[in-house]
């Protein structure tokens, strides 16, 4: 909100440099967003607060500064020239619902000459960035930006039946606004109506028909207040925000309405008008002023600082609050109606702190009385997992949690996405059900910018609905494509493939203590046929990995092959992981045996592995596939597999014969299970 310093000087004697003024303002929370010197004036643009409608005018700002600078507010007087007619003789006011319109005041100015405003007024209006229109409009704006009370003026001659009715609109009623918009009114909208029709949308915008024009001579001035929620709902519904609605939404000063009306009348009187006698004031249910108790000890308890009683008493008074009673460091305070934000002791304490100066509050530290673990297991594990991914050479990304419905269709995650009712755009109108979509966007982005390798991961939530419920799942996904590692003169660069991805999965699972994981071949939505695995743990699916389908890659305009994996961490972390135990290192030498087999090409490694493990050979320490070979001299349709088996006894050196017998046991099991042929038998 723009504030003119010259305008402020109507209310307060200011003699500060620009920087002194800005410092004073900011020290009490009036944040200066920008300022400029213009036409011998200083214009500051202030941040506004939703709870302080009283500061939405120059008077309110002057009042704040008067407390800060310990300067008195100047008294203002608004002389009028009255005629002998009572306002109520010319107009009747009815309020249909006092909750929606708690008070309505009005006064009439007759015989006014519509024309341009005098220079001083035009200057004020221009100073805050508005265009002067005519004396009546400029006066209403002047009153609004002086006192924060919105004023509306009607051409009295155009109000039919000498009546103002504040009521909810009837179904089917319409109003052409001042801006020329034809608004279709609905029954919950509060309107100002004359005997026949709505003439204004209460507190938001006036109607064109009853607006003041060049031919207007008599003016009805409205100074009223309305229910903030009703104003806000209507303004939102018709998509309009005016200076008036902005203030009424935040709350008006119900006591000030007559003064605002009189101020308007007095200013208009300067243009030759004459005011009717005694304004009309419909105020069905006046409320008492709010009363708040302030206890001195609470100030120290909340601020950590003792503030002298004298400062407190003085500040309260300067803020315009009155002290009802004061006894033994307890103040009973009456709050003026313009401070709608003050309701409780804490609110008063903030006022004291604000003017005392936040900078005078000391620095202390809250005592630590209890210690807690710092973070839960899930967070600990996610941190570990991120480090593992980084060590495996994957770069970390963070994507928006949204997805494009078109992409979601192509991805086919198998989950029901959650739509956003008011998205910023169509492409961000769903919540993502998988992280893979975002990662593919990143792959495309980086390839288009010349990346020859993209190995990236993301940890974040995926979202889906099930029946009426929404779910969030902590998820890890990673994708790999292109070269692995840096180029180096010593060795040839490898390219990523399925096993690069799978190796990362295996390493993660075993590092996290989930050694008993297994893979199952199964078709998965994202992946090419026969190019996908499910990751299982204790009989439950915890993830999937494979080669991304061509049609998905096409949707992201990626030409390369991309492998991806996704793990459901919420599921995974629910599983008990093996806790770490130290096992003594073997003190006796191991015996290793290398065995090569010729076997049908479609025999699966995982089956071989399980067969060997099932034998539970006591001193088989480990075994692994050393080599896999196809083509001559291995016959067509067959493959040669070379395993190394390592045996070790914890308490003695194994004899060659013992190792031999275990080896035979393994060979026999594989021969019967898979028709293995030893290389040398071939």
């Amino acid at each position, binding site marked *: 909100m723009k504030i003119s310093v010259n305008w402020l000087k109507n209310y307060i004697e200011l003699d500060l440099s620009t920087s002194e003024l800005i410092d004073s303002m900011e020290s009490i929370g009036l944040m200066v967003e920008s300022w400029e010197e213009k036409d011998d004036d200083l214009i500051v643009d202030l941040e506004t607060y939703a709870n302080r409608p009283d500061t939405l005018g120059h008077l309110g700002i002057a009042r704040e500064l008067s407390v800060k600078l310990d300067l008195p507010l100047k008294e203002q007087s608004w002389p009028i020239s009255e005629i002998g007619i009572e306002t109520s003789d010319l107009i009747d006011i009815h309020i249909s619902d006092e909750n929606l319109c708690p008070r309505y005041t009005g006064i009439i100015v007759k015989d006014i000459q519509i024309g341009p405003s005098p220079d001083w007024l035009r200057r004020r209006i221009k100073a805050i960035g508005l265009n002067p229109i005519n004396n009546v409009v400029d006066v209403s704006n002047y009153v609004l930006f002086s006192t924060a009370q919105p004023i509306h003026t009607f051409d009295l001659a155009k109000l039919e039946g000498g009546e103002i009715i504040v009521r909810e609109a009837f179904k089917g009623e319409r109003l052409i606004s001042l801006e020329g918009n034809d608004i279709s009114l609905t029954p919950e909208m509060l309107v100002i109506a004359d005997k026949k029709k709505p003439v204004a949308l209460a507190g938001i915008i006036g109607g064109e028909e009853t607006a003041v024009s060049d031919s207007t001579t008599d003016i009805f001035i409205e100074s009223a207040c309305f229910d903030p929620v009703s104003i806000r709902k209507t303004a939102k519904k018709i998509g309009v925000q005016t200076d008036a609605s902005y203030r009424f939404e935040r709350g008006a000063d119900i006591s000030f309405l007559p003064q605002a009306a009189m101020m308007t009348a007095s200013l208009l009187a300067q243009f030759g008008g004459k005011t009717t006698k005694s304004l009309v004031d419909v105020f069905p249910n006046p409320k008492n002023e709010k009363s708040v108790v302030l206890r001195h000890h609470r100030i120290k308890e909340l601020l950590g600082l003792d503030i002298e009683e004298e400062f407190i008493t003085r500040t309260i008074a300067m803020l315009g609050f009155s002290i009802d009673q004061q006894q033994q460091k307890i103040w009973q305070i009456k709050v003026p109606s313009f401070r709608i934000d003050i309701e409780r002791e804490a609110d008063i304490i903030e006022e004291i702190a604000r003017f005392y100066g936040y900078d005078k509050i000391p620095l202390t530290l809250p005592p630590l009385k209890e210690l807690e673990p710092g973070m839960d297991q899930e967070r600990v594990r996610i941190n570990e997992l991120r480090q593992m991914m980084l060590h495996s050479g994957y770069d970390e990304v963070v994507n928006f949690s949204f997805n494009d419905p078109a992409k979601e269709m192509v991805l086919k995650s198998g989950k029901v996405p959650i739509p956003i009712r008011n998205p910023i755009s169509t492409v961000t109108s769903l919540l993502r059900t998988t992280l893979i979509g975002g990662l593919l966007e990143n792959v495309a982005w980086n390839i288009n910018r010349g990346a020859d390798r993209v190995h990236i991961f993301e940890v974040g939530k995926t979202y889906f609905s099930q029946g009426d419920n929404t779910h969030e799942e902590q998820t890890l996904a990673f994708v790999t494509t292109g070269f692995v590692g*840096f180029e180096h003169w010593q060795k040839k660069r490898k390219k990523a493939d399925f096993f690069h991805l799978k190796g990362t999965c295996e390493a993660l699972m075993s590092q996290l203590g989930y050694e008993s994981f297994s893979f199952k071949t199964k078709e998965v939505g994202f992946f090419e046929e026969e190019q996908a695995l499910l990751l299982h743990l204790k009989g439950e699916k915890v993830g999937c990995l494979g080669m991304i389908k061509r049609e998905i890659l096409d949707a992201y305009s990626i030409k390369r092959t991309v492998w991806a994996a996704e793990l459901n961490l919420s599921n995974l972390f629910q599983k008990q992981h093996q806790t770490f135990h130290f096992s003594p290192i073997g003190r006796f030498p191991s015996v290793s045996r290398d065995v090569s087999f010729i076997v049908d090409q479609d025999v699966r490694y995982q089956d071989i592995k399980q067969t060997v493990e099932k034998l539970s050979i006591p001193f088989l320490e480990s075994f692994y596939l050393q080599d896999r070979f196809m083509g001559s001299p291995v016959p067509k349709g067959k493959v040669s597999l070379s395993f190394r088996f390592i045996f070790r006894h914890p308490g003695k050196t194994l004899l060659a014969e013992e190792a031999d017998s275990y080896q035979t046991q393994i060979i026999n099991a594989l021969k019967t299970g898979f028709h293995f042929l030893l290389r040398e038998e071939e």
Partner: protein
Amino acid sequence: MKDLKSKIEQYRKEFEEAVSEVRDSAALQKLRNLYLSRKKGYVAGLMDQLKTLPNEAKRDAGQLINTFKDHIQAELQKLQDTFQKQKKYVKAVDLTLPGTKCYWGAPHPLRVFQEKMEDIFLRMGFSIEDGPEIETDYYNFEALNFPPHHPARDDWDTLYINDDLLLRTHTSPVQIRVMEKKKPPIRIIIPGKVFRKETPDPTHAPMFFQMEGLVVDLGITFADLKGTLDFFLKAMFHNKIKIRFRPSFFPFTEPSAEVDISCTVCNGKKDDCRVCGGTGWVEILGAGMVDPQVLKNVNIDPEKYSGFAFGMGIDRTAMFEYQIPDMRLFYENDLRFIREFSRK
């Protein structure tokens, strides 16, 4: 026996000659094979001959052979050592060639920065908490003292799922969730993802990260808030920064404050500083004493307990710290950008 003796003598002579002519490792190996090969070497031949001798002669003969064998081995070893020494000088590698580089993944800058913030609070005995990203209106607004239809909600432009569910606009609902579960003392930080209905531009995004802090206990004061943030901000940025608390408004704190730090880019010396706009101050945090109504909403007696809360944007603060000009860089995930943080 005599035969054997003369044979050894002859071998020895031949050996001395041969050794003097060996110039490289290959010749050395050849000579080694000639004498020491297990099956066909001269020494093996001598051993075979030994077997034909009468038993009483075997001991002396054996000794002779062994001495001879030891001599050969020692001579060959000497020669080998010489070759090895020479090799070092002859075949030196160009050590200025680049070493093998290990490819470490780069963490996302927002995570790096978040962890840096978390670490400081963990040192101060704070615990880390989080909650759902899809929230109810109650937790996101009402419990935090935003009445329905209050204009204060305008500052938190919201993405809605339906009338009741929304994407949390701040991490503050987790304050409520934690206070409902746990009685004071509470000392937590809440880093997390939040959402706003904002079109991406250099300083806005529809999703970003925030970190919230909450301390509730007997006798917690505004001075404690100042002390805590003073420690945090100095640890985070620099021990010499200036910190300014100024009054502000948030529905869920009373009194409320905004916290600025002195601009570390221009040190308040540039009128057209891109970061502080010449004011010398950069807004970093919102904070305040927990509003008594918020405490009442979670059945904590505000007459007995008090608390403070604070919140800051992780993106915004990281942008300030690393001088990143555009918030969208965080979410484009250009690896040239991310890889810059491989050293963090």
